[in-house]
């Protein structure tokens, strides 16, 4: 329930249709793409000007009401999960592409613009926006910045942080800041990078200048089959050792290829233990030379078959399977839980065999899709939330995979963010000192902790509750820090 005075003051600064409090109106906002967690917010506001965003934040700041920014709600870590006492600040009405500068190769967009819409608008100039999360038809660029989203082409073209030039953002007290610039760097600390990936904890982003790239003249993808997962993993290393940075380098295991083949008929070899998609893009001469080299390396690495896309239609067909992996898995199981960890690639065999063993142990099927080029794993754990105990088992299975990611020198999230989902594993990945440093950064922007509270960075007390305080050399560090 929203405090009546807060309600009145919000109603005073927003059009009636932009303030939702009735349960049937706020229900659609109760979760994001991670449906395991749900919470009804006290109110949802849908401002359509920056001035309204400023007003809302000032009011909430004054009244100490939590604010959760929301883009398209496709987060897979519960980043946009509402706060029961708080306001969801939806940027859905910020849908305008404000300008495209073809000569400088930049676009200025509002945060609610869909990722794909930027590339569609830039296409007229032979340009595109490089980061391409699989959710790109739906997710917002504001959400991408907040999560530092990646995509299948980020090995060569980078993550969101590498493709954003400038942000306008509103701080919790209503102050507007501009970070970054139209130049390639800016004065002072790199606050642009700090806000990117900050999961709505530091500021609400209201305008974004992105970098656009010239569309490659040509792109071709090789679809290679392997009779053994480990060989496929080794092939990935061999491609990179040959001095090639493919535009995309993806791996799928057999459960994943079977699921997508039934769904989109992408012409994948079903008998293969693993398939690799290796894309080369650039000028024609470069792609021709690189593809020859890729084929040579894949053959030497023991590929049982290699097909290279002959035209754009076939290239898109080969990719359609990978892009549809999540919905395809959604068809073969009532629920699935997407895990997102990164590992050094050399640890791949160890991690995959552990996942296989745990899949048997928990009695839950698991399909693996993998941004192999940059070591970002996405095991999809299949379960049925209606079967008593299966959700909990899926979560336990997932946590175990993430624990292994940390153990082999990786991280608990490569691109989906911490949200609420990985608070527990954050306590394992970071020591108390580092977590305390994160909390001080949060405090530097938002001393009262009103922006997206309880997300992304666990408090030390939370870690203690989880029983997950990272212990060094058998000793609890800083026993003096209060834990509850």
């Amino acid at each position, binding site marked *: 329930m929203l405090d009546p005075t807060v309600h009145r003051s919000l109603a005073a600064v927003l059009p009636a249709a932009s303030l939702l409090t009735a349960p049937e109106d706020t229900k659609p906002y109760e979760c994001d793409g991670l449906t395991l967690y749900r919470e009804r917010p006290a109110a949802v506001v849908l401002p359509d000007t920056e001035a309204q965003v400023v007003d809302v934040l000032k009011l909430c700041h004054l009244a100490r009401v939590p604010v959760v920014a929301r883009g398209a709600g496709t987060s897979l870590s519960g980043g946009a999960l509402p706060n029961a006492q708080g306001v969801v600040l939806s940027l859905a009405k910020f849908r305008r592409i404000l300008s495209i500068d073809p000569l400088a190769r930049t676009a200025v967009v509002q945060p609610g613009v869909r990722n794909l819409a930027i590339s569609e608008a830039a296409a007229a100039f032979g340009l595109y926006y490089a980061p391409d999360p699989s959710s790109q038809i739906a997710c917002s660029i504001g959400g991408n910045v907040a999560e530092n989203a990646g995509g299948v082409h980020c090995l060569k073209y980078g993550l969101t942080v590498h493709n954003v030039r400038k942000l306008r953002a509103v701080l919790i007290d209503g102050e507007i800041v501009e970070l970054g610039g139209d130049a390639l760097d800016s004065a002072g600390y790199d606050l642009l990078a700090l806000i990117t990936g900050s999961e709505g904890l530091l500021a609400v982003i209201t305008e974004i200048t992105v970098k656009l790239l010239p569309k490659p003249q040509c792109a071709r993808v090789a679809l290679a089959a392997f009779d053994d997962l480990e060989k496929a993993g080794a092939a990935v*290393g061999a491609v990179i050792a040959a001095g090639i940075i493919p535009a995309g380098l993806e791996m799928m295991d057999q459960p994943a290829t079977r699921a997508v083949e039934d769904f989109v008929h992408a012409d994948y070899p079903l008998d293969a233990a693993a398939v690799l998609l290796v894309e080369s893009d650039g000028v024609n001469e470069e792609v021709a030379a690189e593809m020859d080299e890729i084929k040579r390396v894949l053959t030497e690495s023991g590929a049982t078959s290699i097909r290279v896309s002959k035209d754009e239609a076939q290239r898109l067909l080969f990719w359609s399977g990978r892009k549809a992996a999540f919905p395809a898995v959604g068809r073969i199981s009532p629920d699935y839980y997407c895990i997102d960890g990164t590992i050094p690639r050399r640890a791949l065999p160890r991690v995959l065999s552990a996942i296989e063993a745990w899949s048997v142990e928990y009695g839950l099927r698991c399909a693996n899709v993998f941004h192999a080029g*940059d070591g970002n794993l996405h095991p999809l754990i299949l379960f049925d939330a209606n079967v008593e105990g299966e959700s909990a088992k899926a979560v336990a299975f997932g946590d175990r995979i993430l624990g292994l990611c940390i153990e082999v020198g990786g991280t608990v999230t490569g691109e989906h963010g911490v949200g609420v989902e990985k608070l527990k594993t954050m306590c394992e990945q970071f020591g108390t000192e580092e977590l305390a*440093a994160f909390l001080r950064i949060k405090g530097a922007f938002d001393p009262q902790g009103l922006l997206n509270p309880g997300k992304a960075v666990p408090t030390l007390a939370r870690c203690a509750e989880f029983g997950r305080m990272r212990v060094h050399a058998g000793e609890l560090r800083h026993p003096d820090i209060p834990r509850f």
Partner: protein
Amino acid sequence: MSDAIVDGWCARIRDCAAREAPVAIVGGGSKAFYGHRVDGETLDTREHAGIVDYEPTELVVTARAGTPLADLETALAAERQMLAFEPPHFAEGATLGGTVAAGLSGPRRPYSGAVRDLVLGIRVIDGHGRHLAFGGRVMKNVAGFDVSRLMTGAQGTLGVITEVSLKCLPRPAAETTRVFECPADDAIRRVNEWSGHPLPLSATCYVDGRLAVRLSGAAPAVEAAARKLGGDAMPDADTFWRSVRDHAHRFFERGSGEVLWRLSVKSTAPFTDFDGVQLVEWGGALRWVRGASPALDAARLRAFAASHGGHATLFRGGNGRDGIFHPLAPAVMTLHRSLKEAFDPVRVLNRGRMYAGF
């Protein structure tokens, strides 16, 4: 051994914090000219050197802060890899830690990324003498705030960098440089137009009425692009690009009383004569202006940079009376002060190097 060095530094910083005695962090001293002078007890990072982990197929190298940049580059070159931001050395003895703290990148920056784009993880000692680790040794990592990038370019004001993990990239198989005679505004227009086409550009530099464009990649691609662009081949291009990178090029020789300004602006900003000479890099986005100190008016340069989406730095020379770095907007300055407070509340680390107080 190395752990003992870091432990020693932590103890020293704790002690300095207790005494409120400032610490001046020093590596090879190759960038000592950059920023405001720092007074304090010297902490020399060079004793903490060496590559910790380098697995070429992972495209990641981890090294201690005091590692000489040249040694690191040699190790990568042996595996046909490189630091793709083409770090400026400026002088012999440049260290990795100093390179990352200064946050400066060389000619390849617009095409392969800046140092901040390639930093994956960092270890730092904060102003309380705590040794902290952020980011990691993997390519994609969004766990926690991006402190690695916050430290990059913070010039040691938020922490003493002790170790860095960087993404490395394969060296291009072929490289060639084409030269064109043209006026400055023409050069700026051309490089912007070319950047909008799928060409394997890897550096541009306009100086002395000539535009140099470097192409890098697979040999057939580089040859095809060179044919398309035309121009004349530049002999000994490697030496030229190194001289631009390290400011060893004649353009950077300052006469007495001369200063060098660095204008980082939108790549399409018009060419403007500031009563000095100019060298334009980064596809138009980086403009070096050299001239006599009173004639080059700080306010005018800053206004130009700001109106073209960027910032101006008094890079070399001058007395820094008007400040060296571009003034920050008040709300942004407040965030800077809060972050300094979060990492180094006693303000012992490189105090005043960037702005008054930090």
